[in-house]
């Protein structure tokens, strides 16, 4: 059994965890970042380019990993998390024990399991894929259908597994509208003449520069935006896909034949840590993400040493995830500084008692 002490343990090496790690390390703290995958980076490892500036995900990841490699432990399966009044104890599959007074949770999100919207045809028809799978195809520059051909007509379906009481996720995942636009433009750039239609209930493009992306999609790539929600997908004899929806602006039920459907899947909390630790589970909000999402006015916010940031506190883009991680890293700093001061006071008091 190996035992290691640190000032702060960070669980999850996505953009949020890595950003917090960089800041805490620069402030002189000893940290560990525990990652369950064999590589650090979170979703940055999966995405090709990033909205809204079309940057490569790898170019964003590399500076985040700089100077941090020695702090990151990969392929860590956390088995238990316990807390004593002084510290958290985290144990992994190899019985390695990590202890620290502060615990930083940045476990991110899990994409919605599209198979649960059975009527959309995922897992039934070959050319119904998710936005996560499309990122992989874009990364490998291999946007083909199962018959090896390049699609000529694609439908992007918004709000899959979000804003849907029937699957139990009533919140908006906030990044899938802009992800759809990013991916539609990328298809437009790579496949000349491709026709991409986005089927939406509401377009939520509320981030900085998102509106520019929207206009570019309309102007440069002739992406069609249709206000309607998919009701069902069927396959034709020739393998093409028939979708049904209502064009609610035209006020008419409609059908469209496409080669490929991309389901813009929403976000769900990764429950791997809340499942094993009741203390963390208690912090789950009514929408299924961590924390309350309320403004915190207290000067010493997290007295218990437990901190959360990134997509695990609700759907966010990368900028928002990293911004929250920075803010919360400073709360950790505050917490550690205060506990250090009280420890010195305690020692001082004990010393005086012994000598009086």
């Amino acid at each position, binding site marked *: 059994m190996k035992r290691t002490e640190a000032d702060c343990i960070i669980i999850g090496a996505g953009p949020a965890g890595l950003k917090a790690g960089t800041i805490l390390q620069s402030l002189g703290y000893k940290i560990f970042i525990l990652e369950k995958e064999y590589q650090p980076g979170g979703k940055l490892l999966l995405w090709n380019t990033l909205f809204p500036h079309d940057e490569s995900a790898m170019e964003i990841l590399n500076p985040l990993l700089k100077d941090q490699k020695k702090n990151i432990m990969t392929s860590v399966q956390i088995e238990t998390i316990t807390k004593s009044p002084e510290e958290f104890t985290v144990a992994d599959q190899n019985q390695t024990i990590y202890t620290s007074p502060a615990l930083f949770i940045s476990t991110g999100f899990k994409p919605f399991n599209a198979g649960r919207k059975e009527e959309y045809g995922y897992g039934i028809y070959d050319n119904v894929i998710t936005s996560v799978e499309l990122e992989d195809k874009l990364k490998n520059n291999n946007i083909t259908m199962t018959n090896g051909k390049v699609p000529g007509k694609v439908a992007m379906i918004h*709000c899959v597994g979000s804003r849907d009481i*029937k699957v139990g996720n009533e919140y908006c995942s906030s990044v899938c509208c802009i992800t759809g636009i990013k991916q539609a433009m990328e298809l437009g750039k790579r496949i000349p003449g491709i026709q991409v239609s986005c089927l939406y209930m509401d377009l939520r493009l509320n981030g900085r520069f998102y509106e520019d992306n929207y206009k570019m999609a309309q102007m440069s790539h002739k992406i069609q935006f249709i206000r309607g*929600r998919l009701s069902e997908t069927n396959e034709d004899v020739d393998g093409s896909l028939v979708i049904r929806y209502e064009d609610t602006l035209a006020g008419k039920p409609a059908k469209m034949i496409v080669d490929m459907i991309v389901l813009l899947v929403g976000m769900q909390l990764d429950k791997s840590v809340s499942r094993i630790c009741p203390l963390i589970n208690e912090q789950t909000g009514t929408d299924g993400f961590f924390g309350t999402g309320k403004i915190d006015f207290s000067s010493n916010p997290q007295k218990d040493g437990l901190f959360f940031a990134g997509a695990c506190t609700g759907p966010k883009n990368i900028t928002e995830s990293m911004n929250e991680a920075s803010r919360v890293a400073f709360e950790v700093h505050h917490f550690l500084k205060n506990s250090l001061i009280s420890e010195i006071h305690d020692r001082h008091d004990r010393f005086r008692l012994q000598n009086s």
Partner: protein
Amino acid sequence: MIGMTDFGFKIHKDQLLDQDRPNVAYKEMIEKVPSLSLCISCGSCTATCNSSEMTGMGFRKLHLYLKTGLYVNLKRGLKYCQYCGKCWLVCPRGVNTRKAIVEMKRIFEIYKT
């Protein structure tokens, strides 16, 4: 002198929705079926409706006609419903569509017994 009627005004009834007119039927309906207030007009109900393909009708429009006071259109649309309940199955906002249809038929006295 050229009058406004020369441009076709006054000949046709104006097409404005009068949102100041009290909508008693809608008020009664959202009391009876509170989930109706949650409709976001996504059209899933219409797309899945058995009779929409032929009639162009669907629950989304029924609700819209009710809300905007277009009762003549509403009454016509209500006739096509077969109570299959598919609209309820797909609604992302959990609107109790079948109950709403029954209540609308009651209010407009086209409920067959």
